């Protein structure tokens, strides 16, 4: 288990991380998700011991590791650029961390290592471990090549092999898939998840791609502007985003944020059909509706003129302008008829699944939209 307590990191006058507290369970798959420059890589480097927090503490299984180097923390890391040693073969790359651990200074010395019987015995053992890992990652035939002779995907595997070979306490991955093409990225995503299952180790995965984080992790940590915004399972992150920015960041499609006037429980158009389940203070509220949760319906509560249609094959994106002046985008499924620009489209949504945010702070408001009492619009009910 890895615990971060009130970690802050400043570079001169700029604050990269402020007051980050986090618990990462053993054997879990945790993603650090956020836009580029949000501090997620800095946080990973602090966990690795490559960087040090300005304040706060890090505990590995309850032990403070402040003074331990990266090697002493026994973490393994896969870098975005792979960082394979260019002058060594893949075999040399994977064997180096083993040699650094199993051999003493004398046994590693260039010429002596060939002569000392103990060094030769250890070299044979290490080589067996290298070949075992190579077989696991299916890179046996690449072992005697230099990194410059490998493709992106092969380098990726070699880098994973170097990290895996020595049974680390935690396995840190810094955007390892971002240099691969889309197809390979999908394949490697599945392989990393499999690797997590077979090794049963703690994985900490940094990414700016919400789809990667959502599909792979047990726990997602959303970081923005150096602060932890939300820590949750992927499903909770999607269903109950803690703030407007988290809602906007997570999910494949854009979220509609509509600022509407509110009076206790009553909302202004276009939400006259729904009310709040509890009264809230304030004059306006931001209603967040995911564009994939809007469906065309003859009795839909939201009607607007279509301004733009993007046909994507499996789905169609439409943008509408509501009479209230709000803009709305919706994802229509393959079965829906493809509308034409200029038409009026009626959309319905499940009010309970809309998210409410404070328009000033962007924080989630703990209230729900519910259909207005049946008596208010009897005509709709009968249809």
């Amino acid at each position: 288990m890895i615990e971060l307590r009130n970690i802050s990191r400043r570079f001169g006058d700029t604050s990269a991380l402020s007051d980050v507290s986090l618990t990462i369970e053993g054997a879990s798959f945790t993603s650090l998700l956020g836009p580029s420059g949000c501090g997620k890589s800095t946080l990973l480097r602090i966990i690795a011991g490559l960087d040090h927090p300005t304040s706060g503490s890090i505990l590995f299984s309850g032990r403070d590791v402040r003074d331990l180097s990266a090697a002493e923390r026994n973490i393994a890391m896969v870098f975005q650029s792979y960082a394979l040693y260019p002058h060594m073969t893949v075999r040399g790359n994977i064997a180096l961390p083993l040699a650094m651990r199993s051999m003493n200074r004398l046994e590693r010395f260039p010429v002596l290592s060939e002569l000392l019987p103990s060094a030769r015995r250890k070299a044979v053992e290490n080589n067996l471990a290298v070949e075992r890992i190579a077989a696991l990652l299916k890179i046996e035939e690449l072992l005697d090549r230099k990194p410059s002779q490998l493709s992106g995907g092969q380098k990726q595997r070699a880098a994973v092999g170097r990290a895996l070979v020595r049974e680390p306490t935690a396995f840190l991955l810094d955007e390892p898939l971002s240099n691969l093409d889309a197809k390979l990225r999908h394949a490697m995503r599945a392989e990393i998840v499999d690797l997590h299952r077979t090794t049963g180790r703690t994985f900490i995965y940094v990414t700016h791609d919400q789809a990667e984080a959502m599909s792979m992790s047990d726990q997602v940590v959303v970081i923005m502007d150096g602060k932890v915004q939300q820590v949750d399972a992927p499903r909770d992150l999607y269903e109950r985003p803690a703030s407007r920015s988290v809602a906007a960041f997570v999910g494949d499609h854009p979220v509609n944020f509509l600022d509407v006037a509110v009076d206790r429980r009553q909302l202004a158009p276009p939400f006259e059909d729904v009310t709040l389940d509890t009264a809230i203070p304030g004059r306006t509220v931001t209603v967040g509706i995911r564009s994939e949760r809007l469906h065309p319906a003859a009795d839909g509560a939201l009607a607007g003129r279509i301004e733009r249609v993007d046909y994507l094959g499996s789905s169609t994106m439409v943008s509408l302008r509501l009479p209230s002046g709000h803009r709305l985008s919706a994802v229509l499924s393959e079965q829906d008829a493809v509308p034409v620009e200029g038409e009026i489209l009626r959309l319905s949504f499940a009010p309970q699944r809309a998210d409410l945010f404070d328009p000033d702070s962007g924080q989630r408001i703990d209230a729900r939209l519910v259909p207005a009492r049946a008596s208010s619009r009897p005509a709709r009910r009968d249809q």
Partner: protein
Amino acid sequence: MTARGLLGRTATLAVLCLGAAIVLIPFVWMISLSLKPAAEIFSPDFTLLPSQIAWQNYIKAFTEVPLHRFLLNGVIVCFGILFFQLLLAVPLAYALAVRDFKLRGLLFGLVLAGLLVPYHVTAVPLFLGLAELKLLNTYSALIIPFIASVFGIFLFRQYFAALPADLIDAARVDGLSETAIAWRIAFPNAWPAVTAFAIFSVVAHWNDLFWPLIAVSDRDLATPPRGVLYFRDEEAGSDVGPLMAAATVINAPLVLGFLLAQRRFIQGFTMSGLKG
């Protein structure tokens, strides 16, 4: 090819040939003289090729003075200097390029300032210092003044600074100490710079006459250029044939070495980036 293109190429080639000739003529003349009998050397007629090849010049060069000894001294001094230069410059350059510490900027500035100081300026204090230490007339006197090479530190620092930061971090994660990273990761990846530096260092110290003239007087410690002078200083005056033969012999290793390492030498200075 158009006539114009042909003309352009011819002109370019002519200029290059002229340049090459200016550089090469002294060498050709040296080889020519080294193969001529004594009588022919002072004949008023200009001939490039000797009428008969006088190998005895080379035999005299090796017998009159211990030329093999001078060559051996040259090898000991040059490689001694190079060994210690690398031993110091690699960790120092690594520290300046990768480690973050107070006064790093100042130290690097001092290294750059050091590049501006010709070593002749420090010759007198060095001589006095070595004299105090009773090291004059030893190999140490020929080697010690040169083991801290600011040029080497500068060249390696520039190369190490261009190494990807991830590479250094990966090595730290893999359990390498900073010294181990300098020698096992940074040094092998800087081989073009190392080759270029090695050639520079060896050429400079192999050809150096100034310092050996000051630091040693013992004939058995003479480096090749210092040794060649023994042909002139002898009471018989200049013995040009053997002198040129000896000059040819001491030049040959450098020319051969450069030809072997030419490609790496040029790479070292074009600093082609490192591909991961």
